């Protein structure tokens, strides 16, 4: 009787864990997708905030010519062809403010094309 009770308790606990905790766990491990549109000579959005240690997927879409997005301090460098989409997954491991620049020469305002990234705790 006691053995049956223990088996039942174990099954209920396992079922509870499977139904309650798995989605939460999945939600924690699925990286957030952040879509960034690039066009001469700006990014939209122009500013994003991430949490330290939280993995994200940066999706870079070009709305005109070839562009890039590089955060030298974070070792992130992505390039996208004209009209194309590229993505990269990364996990920011240091807090602070970072500035990303276009890494593919795209014209006269190329040097002023930047995206601000804040990494917070």
């Amino acid at each position, binding site marked *: 009787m006691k053995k049956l009770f223990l088996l039942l308790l174990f099954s209920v606990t396992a079922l509870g864990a499977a139904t309650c905790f798995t989605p939460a766990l999945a939600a924690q491990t699925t990286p957030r997708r952040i879509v960034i549109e690039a066009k001469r000579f700006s990014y939209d959005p122009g500013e994003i905030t991430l949490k330290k240690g939280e993995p994200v997927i940066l999706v870079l879409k070009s709305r005109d010519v070839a562009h890039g997005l590089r955060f*030298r301090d974070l070792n992130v460098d992505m390039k996208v062809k004209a009209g194309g989409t590229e993505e990269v997954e990364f996990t920011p491991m240091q807090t602070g403010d970072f500035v990303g*620049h276009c890494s593919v*020469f795209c014209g*006269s*305002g*190329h*040097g*002023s*094309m*930047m995206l601000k990234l804040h990494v917070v705790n």
Partner: protein
Amino acid sequence: MMRHAIVMMSAAALVAVTGCKANPPGRVETAVVTYAKHHVFIGGRNQKNPLPDTPENRADGKEAFSYYCVACHGMDGQKTGVPFAGHMSPPIPSLASREVQSYTDGQLKWILDYGVWPSGMPGSKGTLSDDELWSIVLFLRHLPPAGSQGTPQMYGQ
């Protein structure tokens, strides 16, 4: 009245032809202008390059240099394959020359930012990012041997 107008037009044409003729600068003129640029006109003397001198950063500089600097300076920074290099006044300097290499890193960055007036050297602030401009400074300090990089693509091989 008609005669007066013809004289005026002839004088103007003469000035246009002779006054705008570009002669190579003499030694004294070159020395004076070089001194003035190094010690008076070119700013940024004490600015330090924030980028470490690594092969990766030099490669970044080489790539950024190739965007459009090569049109006048050549792939090697020494005018190789630039068809009009010998016809400019003031002349396009070799970036490997003592005249250029004796600028500080900060002065080279300043020149890249603002250009050198009244020469043909344009400023690139806003056209290239600070990172790219500083990486070009690194590339300038480690230029490849003259002629080793071929002719800029825009002028054919």
